[in-house]
């Protein structure tokens, strides 16, 4: 899935893409990135630290509270969507998805945050 999301982001024109194998590595990458990460696209199910854990960690840190964050997941039961929204997700991509639908969601988040 990381490959697919990375490829779609490249196709969208993003050039500086940092990939992480799990939530813990993603958190490290977010903290150490210079310049700061402009958009996070995270799977929900990941080893070590899940996407929702990562989102909560990001939102709990004052430096990253406004960081655009998109969750990609097959988990779309109502309580899970609610959990993600409560935690401060900007958008939610449900698998299976087409590159076009991912593009649409990413563009919407990016425009809302950066105009």
């Amino acid at each position, binding site marked *: *899935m990381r*490959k*697919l999301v990375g*490829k779609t982001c490249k196709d969208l024109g993003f050039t500086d893409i940092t990939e992480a194998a799990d939530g813990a590595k993603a958190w490290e990458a977010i903290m150490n990135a210079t310049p700061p990460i402009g958009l996070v696209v995270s799977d929900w*199910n990941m080893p070590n630290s899940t996407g929702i854990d990562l989102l909560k960690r990001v939102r709990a840190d004052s430096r990253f509270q406004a960081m655009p964050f998109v969750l990609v*997941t*097959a*988990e*779309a*039961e109502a309580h899970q969507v609610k959990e993600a929204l409560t935690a401060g997700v900007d958008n939610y991509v449900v*698998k*299976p*998805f*087409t590159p076009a639908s991912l593009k649409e969601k990413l563009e919407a988040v990016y425009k809302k945050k950066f105009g």
Partner: protein
Amino acid sequence: MAKIQLKDGFIVVECEKNLVGQECGQLYQGIQNELKSCEAGVILDLKSVEAVDMGFYRMLAVLGKWLRSAEKKFFGVNASADIAKGIRDNGLDSSIKMVASFQAALGGEPKARPSIDVEFVNPFVDSTIKTLSTQCNLQILPGKPRLKGAEGEPPVAIAGVIGLTSKAFNGSIALCFPEKTFLGAMEGMLGEPFPELTKDLEDGAGELLNIIFGQAKIVLNEKGMGIEKAIPTIVTGQSIAVRHLVNRPTIVLPFETEKGPFFIEVGIDEVTNQK
């Protein structure tokens, strides 16, 4: 519109007064929409029917042929003497069996398997078609479900297996691919050809199964089945076989794609309340 409902594995159709012209087409379409949920067959309740035309008889012939090929039953009940005669005169008494009552239809023919299987399996079929067509850009054609071992399955090079735990069922589901089909699915998903199975690609089988499971879980949990979250395991090798540790026979759901065949195995046992 005719009233269509599921009862004891049968699609029961309460037909309207007039079955002529477009009404036959609408009725046929209505039945078609329900056929995938139909385990045992179709029962037409002809009690209210007063007028029919050739379209009605053609519909019976087509439905009868389809149901026979799918090894399902086709009954007509409560027909007037005129309608019953019309069916006989048009040589359709081998397509649709006219019986005196619902009881004769429902009780006279044993069901192939408990209806719980259909209720459980259909969300997986729907979810598989949606996932593989959307994520891998494949045209998916579902085949007829069968019991494992009834026909030879294609040799499996990679399978994703996921355990099922719920209030109602326990068991496992496996998504099984021959190598060529899997590489074709990955090509469709990632937009580049792959000559062989690699470690990187193996994760793709788990990902697809995760999506299929996630979609089906939503539907099943809306029905109150309480299926819990689970993590898939990937198995690779030459002609691998997955063994489901359940008492009931394993169901095979075969699919065809332009890249080759694949199938899903469903092995489930109902949870019994042991104290």
